[in-house]
């Protein structure tokens, strides 16, 4: 029997995302995909799904859903309280939900994104090889748009009761915190900036503007000054690249960030730390940058994502 969950209410931004849309960035199509890659993958691993299956990304506000049939779901993320029927549960687990029970994710203060996975992934059409939603282009996911009341989320696979009751303990997750220090690989245009600005960048606190979104996190803090007037011709961009437009305020490119850009890039956030950045709260979190090397960043990435192997039964 098909496993379906009905969306009752969305007070924020909920979209279907899989691991992302690759192979089309040379045509101007951003990769999209989840803002917090670790939490997204963990939700799938908790259900024994193949990596990258489409899940529901929930951001910025409360969501409530209702199971139309018995089902098993996994929920991960930061900044949400989960209740199923009359009970509350911590995130980062897999749960049995009886037909008719309501699932509520209530937004708390300290985080931004949650992921709800279903067995086999959410069933939606694949556009340009991916089920990720690209909101600007209005394609992918569920009809190229955010979820709304009345939408039905269908699982691609049947479930089994054994999938429920798993958890990913906190020590195997990234060190989410309100004021993280993010590793940055400097360049490719860090030499466009004055020495003082580079020092400022690597020693100051920045907050995240409320105008931030899935395309980019706009930072507020000490502006950065360029040495000369060198114009940069457009080049490829990536999730985590830090662009600095003429007002000197850095913008970190996020999941829906454009595939190319013409502003100088002072550096790029280490992939291992992107989940920490994604879960920062606008106007609240204070972030700092610390220089790191590619090799160290890759080692940390391996170490952090190895945590996904450490699913255990919930006691």
């Amino acid at each position, binding site marked *: 029997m098909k496993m379906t969950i009905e969306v009752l209410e969305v007070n924020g931004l909920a979209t279907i995302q899989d691991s992302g849309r*690759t*192979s*089309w*960035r*040379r*045509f*101007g*199509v951003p990769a999209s995909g989840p803002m917090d890659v670790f939490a997204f993958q963990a939700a799938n691993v908790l259900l024994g799904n193949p990596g990258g299956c489409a899940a529901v990304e929930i951001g910025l506000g409360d969501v409530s859903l209702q199971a139309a049939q018995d089902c098993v779901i996994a929920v991960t993320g930061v900044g949400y309280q989960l209740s199923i029927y009359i009970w509350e549960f911590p995130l980062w687990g897999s749960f049995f939900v009886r037909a008719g029970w309501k699932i509520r994710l209530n937004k708390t203060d300290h985080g931004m994104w949650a992921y709800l996975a279903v067995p086999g992934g959410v069933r939606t059409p694949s*556009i*340009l090889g991916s089920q990720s939603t*690209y909101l*600007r*282009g209005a*394609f992918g996911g569920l009809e190229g748009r955010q979820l709304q009341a009345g939408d039905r989320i269908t699982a691609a696979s049947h479930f089994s009761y054994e999938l429920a009751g798993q958890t990913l303990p906190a020590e195997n997750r990234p060190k989410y915190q309100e004021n993280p220090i993010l590793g940055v*690989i400097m*360049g*490719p245009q860090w030499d466009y900036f004055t020495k003082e600005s580079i020092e400022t960048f690597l020693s100051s606190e920045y907050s995240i503007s409320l105008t931030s979104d899935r395309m980019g996190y706009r930072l507020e803090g000490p502006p950065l000054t360029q040495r000369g007037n060198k114009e940069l*011709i*457009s*080049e*490829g*961009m*990536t999730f*985590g*690249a830090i662009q600095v437009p003429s007002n000197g305020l850095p913008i970190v490119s996020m999941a829906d960030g*454009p*595939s*190319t*850009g013409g502003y100088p*890039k002072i*550096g*790029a*956030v*280490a*992939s291992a730390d992107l989940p920490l950045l994604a879960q920062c709260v606008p106007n609240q979190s204070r972030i700092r940058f610390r220089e790191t090397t*590619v*090799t160290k*960043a*890759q080692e940390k*990435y*391996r170490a952090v*994502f190895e945590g996904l192997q450490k699913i255990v039964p919930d006691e």
Partner: protein
Amino acid sequence: MQFKPRILPLGDSSLLVELGDEIDMAVNQRVHALAHLIEVSSINGIIETVPAYATLLVHYDPLVLSYIQIKNYLREKITQVEEISSRKPRQLEVPVRYGGEYGPDLEFVATHCGLRVEDVIRIHTEQIYTIFMMGFTPGFPYMGKLDNAIITPRLQTPRTRVPAGTVAIAGSQTGIYSIDSPGGWRLIGWTPLRLFSPESETPFLFSPGDEVKFIVERP
């Protein structure tokens, strides 16, 4: 004078190969040649490449390829680019309805350049343009270079909506809006061709590196 190619990290999962630092046809051809070389060698761990004017961004999986490995691989490919003869690019014709409601900025361009409208059209359609890169929106081609005579700066304030198919110029570039979007370029005409069809087996009319010739649409 020779630009020394550089390989720079953009984070821990992509590398920027710099083959030049300005908009130049020969450099751009080498960028596309390098992209093609990488594509046909299909090495495990390279996710995709994104060509731009003078650079190629290589997205890779750091769990499969280490920094040293991919740098060495790319160094080798760069030397091979100089040796191979360039492939003949694909050429496409784009029919355009110039001016009027289709190109509200055509008169401005003519006046700005001290030309008659017919001259602007003639000059725009005379040349074969290379698609240097694609970006901004899915399927938007950055083409050049425009003849000096019709170079026109972009708008100070972008329009909030430019219809898909609109042919435009900005600086020494010409482009075609691939989907309805905001736009800061000068709008000189419109093509009925569809640049982006997400449900199709061939979603994009153009590929980076293609050559484009604009022609006046027969009414």
